[in-house]
């Protein structure tokens, strides 16, 4: 959950990119890091295997002035998508304020998308939240590939909860949809925060 420092006039949010292996989570952060203006981003750091698979997490700190009178920091993380790294996924999810679920649009990846989303829900439940409660955005990535599933079909498979999760179609490696996704999740996180505040 957000860390508010009234003395330093600073609010920190943690946003986590989740999804199956190779769906494009790291690519999303790399593009954000590449294209974001210099003064609003910090260094990007990746704890990865020699094959560029995420081993622990990627980390990218961003700064904005979204809330009046405060410095708003968004600490961006990715998790390792490979099934075997579930214990590290749990660690990275800790205290998070919002999740981007990156789904791989290729037809053959649908089982992995479903499994990864279920895994997200289980891990969130362990920390007292769930996919229904957490600010969440879906990115249907790799729309440029052959054999992609229609968006409606992906909705049917993974976006079938009581409230439809906002969806951004993406070709992350070309930058397509990357900033739309970032804007969507940061807006949701900010609104969630302000709403909770106003309820006291």
């Amino acid at each position, binding site marked *: 959950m957000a*860390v508010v420092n*009234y*003395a330093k006039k600073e609010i920190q949010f943690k946003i986590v990119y989740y999804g199956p292996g190779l769906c494009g989570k790291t690519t999303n952060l790399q593009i954000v890091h590449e294209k974001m203006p210099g003064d609003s981003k910090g260094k990007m*750091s990746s*704890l990865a295997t020699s094959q560029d698979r995420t081993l622990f997490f990627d980390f990218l700190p961003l700064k904005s002035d979204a809330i*009046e009178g405060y410095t708003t920091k968004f600490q961006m993380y990715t998790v390792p998508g490979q099934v075997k790294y579930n214990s590290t996924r749990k*660690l990275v999810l800790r205290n998070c304020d919002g999740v981007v679920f990156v789904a791989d649009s290729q037809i053959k990846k649908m089982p992995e998308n479903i499994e990864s989303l279920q895994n997200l829900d289980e891990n969130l439940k362990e920390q007292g939240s769930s996919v229904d409660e957490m600010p969440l955005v879906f990115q249907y990535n790799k729309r440029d590939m052959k054999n992609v599933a229609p968006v409606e079909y992906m909705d049917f498979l993974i976006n079938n909860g009581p409230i439809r999760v906002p969806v951004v179609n993406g070709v992350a490696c070309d930058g397509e949809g990357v900033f739309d996704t970032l804007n969507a999740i940061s807006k949701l996180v900010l609104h969630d925060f302000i709403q909770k505040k106003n309820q*006291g």
Partner: protein
Amino acid sequence: MAYELNQEECLELQTELDEFLRLSDSSSALLCDKGGAVLVDSGSDEENDLMAALTAGSFAATRELARTVGEEDFEAVYHQGEKRNLYIAGMCEEVILLAVFEQENSQVGLVRMMARKLRREINQTLDSMANKKEVVAEDPTVSFVLKK
């Protein structure tokens, strides 16, 4: 777990951390939560967000490792470098200390002792922070307004 530091708590943590820095002859130090967010820092503060993220990760990973070999009572991680050393220690269920100290200026024994002292000093503040309901600051004029 949400952390809200009001002026008083922030000042308290800052004072104690500054004192820790002085007594332990460290070059920089920070307190972060287990999600990797900085609460307060002392000394040089470049790349602090990254350091906090890595501190939380390193602490959690090492603790899991310790548990796996049957060691439940895990207190700290110490990294000895050529010139600079790192000391990472749990302060309470939710908060971790990272201290960076130069080989030639300090010793791990001293840093460990001062870290324990720090833990005692800030215990109450951390307790009351952790048990605070997630409510708006004491100051009712505090409000959060989104910029257009």
